[in-house]
């Protein structure tokens, strides 16, 4: 249902266990002043507005839940927010920290790793209204998602994979290039990042995966192209996509 605001909407930014990269990316490049004109700031602790969780129209949440206290806090954030948007790979799907649940190769503590409750993505603790993936997020994408959800419009991803942006850049496919040993996850990853990482070693899959991505086919196909074991391709997936 569309929402109408007669005053500036209240925006809060909350961190669970995090590197704080996503808020930094949100505010970088001059967005800070712009955000201050379009929103009234609620909780933004690192900018001096911490304390008790206030009622917000929009709550951006980043990081992973690493304790029971953090889970409780996330529930309180949910209760006090009209709209909750998870920002970043950690909050959306666990990101790099979630990899602790995967035992290292040759390890004997597989059961311990899998059974450990923490860390967990925010999306596994509370219901959220939109997800903005990436490590870090793309600020312009966040602006679009927040604007849509504030209007009550369900956010839809742009459609297409990173391959679209890579080809628009005129780049050669890394996965088809036998002279390069990197595995590129662009074909199963949502576009929207301008294929930034392609010239620097390929896509690592930090953004949300494309809906309906055929991961098994991807693994088989790339393994065949690169002439490597399928385990090598799966290993590349695990940097940001351990919940698969």
């Amino acid at each position, binding site marked *: 249902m569309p929402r109408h605001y007669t005053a500036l909407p209240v925006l809060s930014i909350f*961190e669970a*266990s995090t590197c704080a*990269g996503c808020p930094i990316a949100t505010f*970088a*490049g001059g967005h800070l002043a712009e955000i201050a004109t379009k929103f009234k700031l609620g909780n933004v602790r690192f*900018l001096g507005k911490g304390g008790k969780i206030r009622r917000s129209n929009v709550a951006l949440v980043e990081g992973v839940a690493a304790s029971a206290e953090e889970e409780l806090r996330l529930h309180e954030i949910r209760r006090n927010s009209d709209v909750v948007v998870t920002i970043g790979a950690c909050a959306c799907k666990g990101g*790099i920290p979630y990899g602790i649940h995967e035992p*290292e190769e040759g390890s004997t503590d597989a059961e311990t790793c899998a059974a450990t409750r923490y860390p967990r993505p925010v999306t596994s603790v509370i219901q959220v209204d939109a997800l903005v993936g990436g490590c*870090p997020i793309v600020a312009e994408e966040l602006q679009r998602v927040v604007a849509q959800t504030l209007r009550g419009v369900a956010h839809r991803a742009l459609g297409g994979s990173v391959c679209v942006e890579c080809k628009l850049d005129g780049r050669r496919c890394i996965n088809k290039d036998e002279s390069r040993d990197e595995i590129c996850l662009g074909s199963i990853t949502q576009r929207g990042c301008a294929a930034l990482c392609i010239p*620097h070693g390929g896509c690592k899959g930090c953004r949300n995966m494309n809906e309906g991505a055929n991961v098994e086919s991807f693994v088989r196909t790339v393994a065949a192209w690169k002439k490597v074991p399928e385990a090598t391709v799966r290993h590349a997936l695990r940097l940001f996509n351990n919940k698969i």
Partner: protein
Amino acid sequence: MTQLMPFPFALRHTGDHSGGGSKFTTGPLDKTEGWAQINGIRNEERELIAAQVQVLEHSRSMEKLLRGKTPREALLIMQRVCGVCPVVHGIAAVEAARKALLAALTALTASCEGFKISRRTQLLELIAMLGGTLKSHLEHIYGFVAPEMIRVDSILAPDAMKLKVVRMAMDLIKVATKVTDYVTGRSVHPVTFHLTGSTAEVDAKGLLGHAACIERAKNEYFERMVEFIATMRSAIPDFEVPRRFVALDGDEYPLHSGDHVLVGDLGRLQVRDFFSLIREDTPPHSKTYFVTIHDEPYVVGAAARWFYHEPKLSPYARSVAAEVGLPSASMNPFHNTLAQLVECAHILSILPRLLTELAELPDEELPMVAHTKDGVGIGACEAPRGTLFHWALYRDGKVASARALIPTSQNLAAMERDLFEYARPLAQAGATDGELSRAMIALAHSYDLCMSCAVRMLKKEDLVHSHVH
């Protein structure tokens, strides 16, 4: 006119101490990266008997996550220790890998001196670090400390946003961010750092354009930003406490990586020997480790670099130091903020020259290298908040064990001591819990804390000390 605002901290009394004493806490600190609070403990006579820095941030087990990873993956993971200073974590991680895998890298080159990164890569990494340090220092000075000086709760408060000096600071932060974006692909979690060099796609036009932006900022409005801090000089308390400073050594003012550490009366040590001195302990009241040398605290950061390397600063930076009243070899913890401002001036002095030099260098093709060797390496560099160390043991080209020594962790023991020494006489003079909290928060902010970096990443039993030597 700026209205005075109360400080936004929660004050709670727990009163759960035996002997009738009391405990007060500031609650989670605002205007810091990550979660921490300061506790003060009084006895029955209302004397302050302890000050605690309680880090509340949880571990993300980053060091453990490195096991089994290639150098490239290790670099991507370690950058994500912190989104405020990912450049320095990236540099330290790649330096550790380069040193650990030196034999494999040397096989790529015919030089008998061994592998060295090219001048182009040196400049790209140095410029990235300088841009990141400039941005970080400005955020701290004008985003965290200045609001306290003018008694507003946030730089985003309407009264603050009207101030031209705040808009100038935001503009310069944007300029610094764009420089780092340009030479690293993306300043938050860069994409261009690699074992054999930088993959940055830059050209002369872009580099010279950024050099011009830096020059404009320095000439048109940085002076007024300095004047603002100079006029607020009287708000900085006079408080001195003897301290041992630690910083990297170098021929130039060290804002990059290095191989030797200056450790006060203990002299100049190789980085690996420095590791044999330190001790890491997690106090019961905190979730992160505190680092000491011979059970004594020490301090890293801009104040430490100023202590050792003042003569190596540019003349402009030294004039800014004089203008803001930063004395040589200062033992005042509050002066760390002034030392950061001096470093901003130094960076603004030297960045245009470096960007211009880089603009004259051709692009280069980076050699690929197979990661199949064993080795140990330590990458050490001067992060905005102090000396950062990444240690990595590689077996068959993958990380077998890793450890990071973070600037904020190294400062926490000194910070607790300083908080106590600063607040104790105030308590003796009859200061209330609220007044003590306010004073301790101001001192804590001068350290420019970064808690996300500082959290314990490994349980102590998982550390493999023996491999360091």
